[in-house]
Each structure stands twice: as structure tokens, then as C-alpha cells.
């Protein structure tokens, strides 16, 4: 048995270290470590409640809107307030822009460059992948980065800037759009659709979101000229549909809350049985047995976050969240599986939650959200309010959930006399990259790496890179 430490594990957001115990070329056990702790939950205590809107988003430079919205959701839960419908729509447009930007960054900047590595020099697709996707110098970046920047102009219009805007409130957003703003929004969405239909998909968005079986996806891979089809052909050659299988439980708390409920519903899907049910979100617990944390209550509504660097057996600053005692996977795959997208259900039936399914779900979600943004923009009501004023906060314990790009994000807060008494945050990658729990059960990534054949390559095996990055981890959110 040999132990390999992979770090700094880059092209992810934040600090990540992965330790692999390898025996006869096969990963026996993996341990994933979040190596940064800043203490945001401690920083929030004793502040006026609304300060969460300024502090929480600063956990992360790329999930900022999601953190703002979770804070707004927990504040909304604590006051009798009916958000302005325009405010919910504008919030969803901005949130979708952030989430698409994250998906796009993941695809072009974090994930695809691994196929340009010298390790694949013998593959027939390698020269093309290198020209198009190589880190920093690939031709695709010259198109994808400006398209991402143009999409983020949504933030200039709705939230003033990105990241870290105070525009997102319990009652909506602080800026009301006028007719000219709405037209600018439509123009930039049209630009973004153009990029997607020319470059990423080389096909109409509607044709992409209508793909419903693995066979149709295969035909798309062979007939389309875009970057997504290029990925699909590489994935077929490398058998990414067999790589990095997760725990099989997929959770979504419900995404994009609007005047008519969630655009993508909440649910817990067991991929082994196909069973889908309401997620038991009041049965979330956090285990600190392998975290650099002092013992505390398991219920996030009652727990503290106090670090203990000397804790015996600890290897990560992340706590281990569990739903009814089990590790679950969150993210675009979970959202679209729970929402019942037929292509995603077919991929899960074929191989479970794997590298291929995660990437396809993420890219598919870009197409779904680009269309949703157009719908929400059309639904804006001219001259109607964008924000309902705050009402006095009730004392007590409250919770707010949103779906960030990477999955379920929860904020648990207790307020007393308008001040924050407790604050707990469980971020998507806290779920996906959780350490072991007291029973020794590994987290989703740790499960996905176990059993991988790395042969003589050890840590430099490219499959390790694919599996880890397929989750699109955000480590600064993970331990915060």
C-alpha cells in the first residue's frame, strides 16, 4: 500500500488536497481535505441580521449570488413578507447568470483542459483537443471568456456588479428595471444564445434540451460541430460513463423560486431504486468526527463551528453533512435528475452518477437556463415594484435553501432582537467533498475515487483529475 498526496489540486475554486491509498495500482481509499478555514460563521455572530447579506456572499467570489440568496431566504423566513414578483424574476435572472457563468467556467477553464494533456498524446482526438481546449492558450477560451463576460453584464443591470452585491434582499432586488434596461437585458441574452448556438452546441438550444435518450445524445455527438459534441466524442473513447460513480442518492432543494414556485423542483432521488420523494430537509445533520472541529450539536440549527486543529483522526476543515445518516450528491445532475429530464434519467439508468452524467447535466442546464432567463425577462411587469420593504424580524430559528451552481446550499440562522445568535452554512461541496463520518462512511468524492485503477501512474493518472473535477468543487464554500 502506498499513500499519495495530490495537491495543490488546481483548476478548482479554492484549496483542495486529495490523499489516495493505492494498492496494486488500485485506489483502496481516498480522503479529501479542505485546507482553508476562515470562520465566517463565527464572524456573523452578534451582528445585525441584515449584515448576513453583506458578509455571507464574501465567502466566495464565484458563488456570491447564491450565498446572498440563501441569506435573503433565511431572512425572508423570519419575517412576514411577500416578495415582489418582479424581484423574484430579476433575482432568478441574476442567479441563473451566475450559475451559467460557473458552468461555463467549469467546462472551458477547469475541466476540458485535462484532455489536452500530454498523457493523451496518442489519442486520435488529442491534437484537436489541444488546439481548442489547452489551459490558458486554447482557442475556445478566446470565445468562451468574452461570452461569459457579456452574460455577466446581467449583473451590472440587476445587481450593480458581480461578485458581492447588496442588491439581493428578502423582498426582491433593490434596482427596478426600466424599459431600456429590459431591452438591454434582452439584447445580451440574445448575444449569449448566439454564442451557445454557434460555439458550445452548434445547434438550437431547443434541440439540445429536447435530447431525451443516450441514443439521441450519441447521434448529436456525431452530427454536431460544437464543443459539447467534441466532449461527447472524447467521453465515448475514454468511457467516462463508467468513471467516478457517486453514492447514488441525489438531492435538490428546489431551484429558482418564482411567483409560481420552483422552476426545478425539490426532491431526493435514489438512483438504485428509482424512488423519488420530497427531500427530508429537516433530517440534515453534520458529523465532525473527521473534521478539525470541536464536538458540537449535529443539528445545524443548534451547532457551533469552533476549529480544533489538533483533533485526533481529523483531516479536513469540512464537516460531514448527512441526510438521514447518508452521504448524498448534489449539483446540476441531481437537479435535473430530480426534475425528471429524460436524458439525465436515461444516463443514470445506464451507469449511475458518473463523470459523463455530471458533465452532460451541467452543460444541458446551461441550455435550460438560457431559455429560462428569456422566459423570466418576458414576464417582468413594467412599472411594478421590484422589492417589498422589510418587516420586523421574528425571534427564533430559521432556515433558507437555494440551489447554487454546484448544488444545495443551506443557511441556518437564529435571530434574537434583530441580531444573529447562531449561523450555520452547509454548501454544495460540503456535501460532495465531505470527509468520513463517525461510522467511517466516506463522502461522495471519496466513494467515487475508491476502486479506480491508476496503474503505474499513481497521482498523475488523468482519471483522478477527471473524477475530482467532474463535481466542480468550490472549496472556499466548502469549509468557509
Amino acid at each position: 500500500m502506498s499513500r499519495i498526496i495530490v495537491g495543490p489540486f488546481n483548476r478548482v475554486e479554492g484549496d483542495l488536497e486529495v490523499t489516495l491509498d493505492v494498492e496494486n495500482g488500485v485506489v483502496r481509499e481516498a480522503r479529501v481535505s479542505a485546507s482553508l478555514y476562515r470562520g465566517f460563521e463565527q464572524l456573523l455572530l452578534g451582528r445585525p441580521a441584515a449584515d448576513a447579506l453583506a458578509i455571507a456572499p464574501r465567502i466566495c467570489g464565484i458563488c456570491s449570488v447564491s450565498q446572498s440568496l440563501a441569506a435573503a431566504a433565511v431572512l425572508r423566513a423570519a419575517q412576514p413578507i411577500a416578495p415582489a414578483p418582479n424581484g423574484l424574476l430579476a433575482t432568478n435572472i441574476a442567479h441563473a447568470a451566475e450559475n451559467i457563468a460557473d458552468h461555463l467556467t467549469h467546462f472551458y477553464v477547469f475541466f476540458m483542459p485535462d484532455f489536452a494533456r500530454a498523457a493523451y498524446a496518442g489519442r486520435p482526438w488529442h491534437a484537436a483537443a489541444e488546439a481548442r481546449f489547452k489551459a490558458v492558450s486554447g482557442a475556445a477560451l478566446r470565445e468562451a471568456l468574452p461570452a461569459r463576460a457579456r452574460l455577466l453584464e446581467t449583473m451590472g443591470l440587476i445587481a450593480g456588479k458581480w461578485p458581492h452585491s447588496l442588491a439581493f434582499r428578502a423582498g426582491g432586488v433593490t434596482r427596478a428595471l426600466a424599459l431600456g434596461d429590459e431591452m438591454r437585458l434582452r439584447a445580451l441574452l440574445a448575444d449569449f444564445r448566439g454564442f451557445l448556438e454557434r460555439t458550445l452546441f452548434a445547434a438550437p438550444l431547443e434541440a439540445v434540451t429536447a435530447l431525451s435518450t443516450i441514443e439521441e445524445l450519441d447521434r448529436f455527438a456525431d452530427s454536431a460541430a460544437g464543443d459539447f459534441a467534441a466532449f461527447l466524442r472524447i467521453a465515448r473513447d475514454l468511457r467516462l460513463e463508467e468513471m467516478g460513480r457517486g453514492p447514488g442518492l441525489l438531492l435538490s432543494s428546489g431551484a429558482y423560486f418564482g411567483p409560481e414556485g420552483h422552476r426545478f423542483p425539490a426532491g431526493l432521488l435514489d438512483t438504485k431504486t428509482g424512488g423519488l420523494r420530497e427531500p427530508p430537509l429537516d433530517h440534515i445533520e453534520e458529523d465532525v468526527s473527521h473534521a478539525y472541529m470541536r464536538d458540537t450539536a449535529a443539528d445545524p440549527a443548534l451547532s457551533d463551528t469552533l476549529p480544533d486543529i489538533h483533533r485526533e483522526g481529523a483531516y479536513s476543515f469540512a464537516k460531514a453533512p448527512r441526510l438521514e445518516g447518508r452521504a448524498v450528491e448534489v449539483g446540476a445532475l441531481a437537479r435535473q435528475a430530480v426534475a425528471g429530464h429524460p436524458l439525465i434519467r436515461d444516463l443514470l439508468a445506464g451507469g449511475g452518477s458518473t463523470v459523463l452524467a455530471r458533465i452532460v447535466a451541467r452543460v444541458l442546464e446551461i441550455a435550460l437556463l438560457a431559455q429560462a432567463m428569456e422566459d423570466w425577462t418576458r414576464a417582468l411587469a413594467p412599472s411594478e415594484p421590484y422589492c417589498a420593504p422589510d418587516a420586523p424580524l421574528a425571534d427564533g430559528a430559521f432556515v433558507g435553501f437555494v440551489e447554487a451552481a454546484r448544488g444545495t446550499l443551506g443557511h441556518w440562522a437564529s435571530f434574537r432582537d434583530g441580531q444573529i445568535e447562531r449561523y450555520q452554512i452547509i454548501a454544495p461541496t460540503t456535501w460532495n467533498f465531505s470527509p468520513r463520518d463517525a461510522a467511517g462512511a466516506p463522502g461522495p468524492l471519496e466513494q467515487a475515487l475508491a476502486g479506480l485503477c491508476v496503474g503505474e501512474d499513481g497521482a498523475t493518472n488523468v482519471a483522478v483529475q477527471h473524477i475530482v473535477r467532474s463535481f466542480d468543487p468550490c472549496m472556499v464554500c466548502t469549509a468557509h
Partner: protein
Amino acid sequence: MAALERGASGWFEELRGFGIRLLWHPSVSEETGEEARAILARVESGEERLGALCIEGSILHGPEGTGLFNKLSGTGRSMLDWARALAPRADYCVAVGSCAAFGGVPAGAPDPTDASGLQYSGVDMGGALGPDYRSVKGLPVVNVSGCAPHPGWIMETLLALSLGRFTQADMDDYGRPRIFADHLAHHGCSRNEFYEFKASAEDVSERGCLMEHLGCKATQAVGDCNQRAWNGGGSCTQAGSTCIACTSPGFEATRGFHRTPKIGGIPVGLPLDMPKAWFVALAALSKSATPKRVRENARSDHVVRAPTPGAEKKKP
């Protein structure tokens, strides 16, 4: 990651156009794990020249001075240790963001990780590298503050450094590039007319000035936020979301970002350089002169009364 918004053909093309080579970047470089450690080792030994060391994030000294709240993964060493090892090798050292500059949000009370900036702890010089640190080319740490800093502030500072056009005279008293620190966030604010007449917003999403009631510190914070576009045309104040002075050391100490603290009805934080008596007198005068249009729009979320200047009277 803010820098990724730069450039008509993307940030990487912009860097290439100026001959700037990214030696290693945790979010975008191909090299990972062992390959990345090898690059860091070459820089540390002096084998590889380092034009600029750009650091993002507070430097964490805790627990107990070990720095172990932030290890650079895979190296077993803290970022505190790495910053001290690499900064002396760099032609220039750049703190990207208010965390790396001054400590930022993590340094707020109760400062759970003993956080500082590279060369400042809040307003005090010192930080991780100490007050006497100078880079190879003789500059203290260049503090591109902001939470987050504008992509333009980062890129223009790097360009000026790479072209040898940036000297100590181009930094303000807190080491911030005068590229943005010569201005106040207030300059060019789209709410200027409301400010002039002290026609103030009193609740969220109203169009009036945010200073009197809603916590806006744009008259006290450096930044050209309202002179250059953020994300194609926005700014915090334009979005009604209040300036929290994120370019300033210690901005995180505020309690109640959304409310203006007052004594005797007068905001505690007055515009920089402005004598209090003058402010009070001018405010009273301008309030009494506020046009109806300005007064009504200040309390509305949409424009309810458009300007109808006499000079534009229709000819019969």
C-alpha cells in the same frame, strides 16, 4: 476570477498581448499537484524569475501563529510561510483584493483566524511581510483593494508594473494604486442630483441618495466605481445597493451595513474633507430648495416625474 472578465478576446489574450506569461495560477493553469509544486520550488530557489507575485485572500496567522488555518495543499506549508518565502523573490508583490491587502472580512471581530493582509493589518502597517518589506524592484506591496476589486484595477496595475511605468508615487498612503484611489466612489454617481438636494431614499429600492439613511459610504471610500462600468454598466450605488467602502482598510468592522449611523440626526460619517458645520448648513439649504420632481423620484423605485426644463418648451 474577476480578471476573467477582461479583454475583448479574453484575459489570456490580453496578457499574451503584453508579453505577460502566467507562471502558475490555481484556477486556470494546466499544472497541478507535483507539477505545480515543482514550479513553486523553482521560484523559491531563484531558478525561475518571478515578475509579480499576486496573492488573493487574507493571510491567516492562526492557530497560535502557525498559519495552519490555510495550508497550501500538497505542500504541508502554510500560505503565511509561502508568502514570506516567495515575496522576497518577486520583482513586485501585488495584493489582489481587500483580504490580501488589509485582512478584509476574515479579520472582522472576533478575528477567528488571526487574519491580516500581506503588509497591513487593517490601517496598521505590518501584516504578514512586515512594514519594511520591499520587493526586488523596491516597492512595498501594491494593494489592489476592493471586495472584489474591479477587473480593470487588477489588469491596469499589472500592465503598468510590467511596463515599468508604476512607481511609489502611483500609490496612495495605503499602498493602493492611484489608478482608482485618486477618486471617490461617489464621483460620477448616477444619484448625484439626489445627493445635491439631500433628497434621500428611506427604504430599499428607492431612487434617492443612499447616504443619509441607507448606509452609503461612497463619499468616504476611494474608487472610480461610478466612472467606469462594472459588468458592462453598473455600480453598487446605481443598483441601489449602497457603498460599503470595500476598498478601505477595516470596512468589515461596520455593524449594520444598511443603516446610516447618526448623532442628533446627522450622519456620523460625513464626506471626506468636508467640515461638519458646512455640511449641515448646505444640507439644510439644499433640502429647502429641492424640486418636486427630485423629491418625488427620491422616494420611488421608478421615475415618476420626468424632467420638464423650461428651456425645452415646445414652439407653437
